[in-house]
């Protein structure tokens, strides 16, 4: 018999496609949460592989903090247009106004936590029973134990003790009304796997993933993009740096890294050399306490 060999990226892709199709098969109102970041851009490519020449069996949903990089927003709109898929945008700004929530203040002010409110409202508004997201288990310790189908209660809460055992490639998506499932098709991918896949698939990314000159503030040894949204202190110094982003989220809590990478090969080379993991390099919010991520997930965060 001839030898048949499936490369690791093909294996990861096959697994992710299988998971997406399980979502299509098991749920009535699924959604794909699209953040504009490279992980969700990867999800979109996987959805194309899973469902073309048909349409996606779910809309793309973006929870917009209002503090996103304009480049990411433009990319989002163009992508949805090019794919001919439905895009739903809900704004954290509206939730803040409607529920008269108070904006976080101070040095670490970020709408990241408020995003959860808007996400839960949106889930309720459309009756989504499954939300596909781009989280990966290699990102953070609390994520390392996350299931691929992660059941959340009505409040979106994650309870590590209530998680369902997940065996073989059988995913149990049965939930009661009001509950929903967060689904993570690229759970088993690492940051480098994502980059290698983007390279192989020749996926175009927002240009902020590559080196560019930007005005930054230095915060706790990290470079934060200067913007109107970021909390400023009198002794803050604004510096011009050649930077790129490794993740793209809210401008107030996504840090840049100094970089000379003009293209994907450059990015991959820098990651191989880098000795700082992705979240550590770029997320201010995880540093606040040792269990920050675990606590946020219990509260309904992705």
């Amino acid at each position, binding site marked *: *018999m001839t*030898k*048949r*060999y*499936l*490369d*690791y990226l*093909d*294996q*990861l892709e*096959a*697994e992710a*496609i*299988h998971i997406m*199709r*399980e979502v*299509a*098969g098991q749920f009535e109102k699924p959604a794909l949460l699209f953040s504009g970041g490279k992980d969700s851009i990867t999800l979109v490519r996987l959805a*194309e*592989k*899973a*469902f*073309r*020449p*048909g*349409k996606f*069996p779910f809309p793309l949903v973006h929870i917009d903090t209002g503090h996103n990089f304009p480049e990411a927003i433009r990319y989002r709109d163009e992508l949805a247009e090019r794919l001919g898929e439905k895009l739903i945008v809900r704004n954290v700004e509206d939730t803040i106004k409607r529920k008269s929530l108070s904006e976080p203040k101070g040095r670490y002010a970020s709408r990241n936590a408020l995003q959860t409110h808007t996400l839960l409202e949106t889930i309720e508004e459309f009756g989504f029973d499954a939300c596909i997201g781009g989280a990966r*288990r*290699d990102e953070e*310790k*609390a994520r*390392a*134990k996350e299931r691929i189908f992660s059941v959340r209660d009505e409040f979106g809460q994650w309870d*590590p003790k209530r*998680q*369902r*055992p*997940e*065996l*073989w*490639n*059988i995913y*149990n998506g*049965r*939930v*009661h009304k009001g509950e929903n499932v967060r689904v993570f098709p690229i*759970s*088993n991918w*690492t940051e*480098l*796997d994502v980059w290698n896949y983007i390279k192989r698939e020749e996926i175009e990314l927002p240009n902020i993933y590559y080196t560019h000159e930007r005005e930054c503030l230095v915060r706790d040894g990290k470079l934060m993009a200067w913007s109107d949204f970021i909390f400023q202190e009198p002794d803050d110094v604004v510096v011009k740096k050649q930077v790129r982003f490794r993740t793209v989220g809210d401008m107030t809590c996504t840090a840049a890294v100094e970089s000379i990478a003009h293209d994907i090969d450059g990015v991959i080379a820098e990651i191989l050399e*880098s*000795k*700082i*993991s992705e979240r*550590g*390099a770029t997320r201010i919010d995880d540093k606040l306490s*040792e*269990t920050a991520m*675990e606590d946020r997930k219990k509260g309904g965060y992705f």
Partner: protein
Amino acid sequence: MDILRFITAGNVDDGKSTLIGRLLYDTKQIFADQLEAIESSGRLNEDGQVDLSLLTDGLKAEREQGITIDVAYKYFSTEKRKFIIADAPGHIQYTRNMVTGASNSNLSIILVDARKGVQEQTRRHSIISSLLGIPHLVICINKMDLVGYEEQVYNQIVEDYKQFAKKLRAKEITFIPVSALKGDNIVEGSELTMPWYKGPSLLEHLEQVPVSQDFNLEDARFPVQYVIRPLTAEHHDYRGYAGKVISGTYKAGDKVTVQPSGQTSTIKSVELGGQVLEEAFAPMSVVLQLEDDVDISRGDMIVKAAENLEVAQEFEAEVCWMHNKALKPGAKLLLRHNSTETRCVVRNIDYKIDINTLDHLEDVDQIQLNDICRVQIKAASPLLLDKYADNRANGGFILVDETSFATVGAGMVAEIEY
């Protein structure tokens, strides 16, 4: 570059977390900030070095109690392979976690403390690995530094283990003397400390183990997950059956049977993302188009016509129970197998498997949490099953509680009654 999925098991304190930490550390997969976070936690081990086990002990509750309570997944890669580690805890009450981690693994690393030798847990973890059909076992005899790196100690443990291992179904068993703490035979060799050992280090072994043969390429099984019907002007009559080749191979021209209906047709094309492929083989996800207009929906299976895979409603299985509330004969449950879900009833418990000895215990009237029992099951609608031992990809199923929807059991098909 391919993927090896493995599980690590061992008694508490045998050194699992340290071993994984060492693998990650010595292959330079740990980043400065992760190390810094561990250092700043201030926990050092006896040697005054940073405690590498903290890299894997994730959740708050675990750090407070100093134990691992759930399966944690870790990733690393070398030039040869990507590795996915399922780190399963060793306590007896967590058999279900080990079963979970083992279900997707091709290899199982079982740690033995050189000072203690083969223990009840060693046998249990080996037996669970074997029941779950893991083809490759690696027995790491750890803490060799604490027994003066003595060859005799190692040989004695290997002998004891081989004696016991005769009962196991594993295809291949490898023994390696290691010190997870000092790093002997983990990534590097042990020329200085154990010159008498001539085999590969653990990492060398993990890089070489042949895993591509572990996919079953004989029995063609394609469970349909979803039907693609664009209904656009361009693809007006298009019907694509989306699914995963869980075993076997498919190509255009193959004669196929659609079960359970028994209709036959021929494969028109194999595609992915709108691109035509020459052939699909396990574990690829693809789309199949057929020549004829047959009625196919999610839950059906496309098999090759020559296979004669029959539908069955009654079968025997080994079931691992994963819920606090015991299972009694007569219980009705949901059964999920590939993309099919049906109701079922557990009609009889034949015997309980003693997971320390593989002995059969008769006269069992219920299955408790973490028990593994041989049972008779009747499904409400026909299923397309293989025996787990013949085809791991099509012999496993889960049991789901009808009201809470919790996953309460994992089953492996043992005998099928047609």
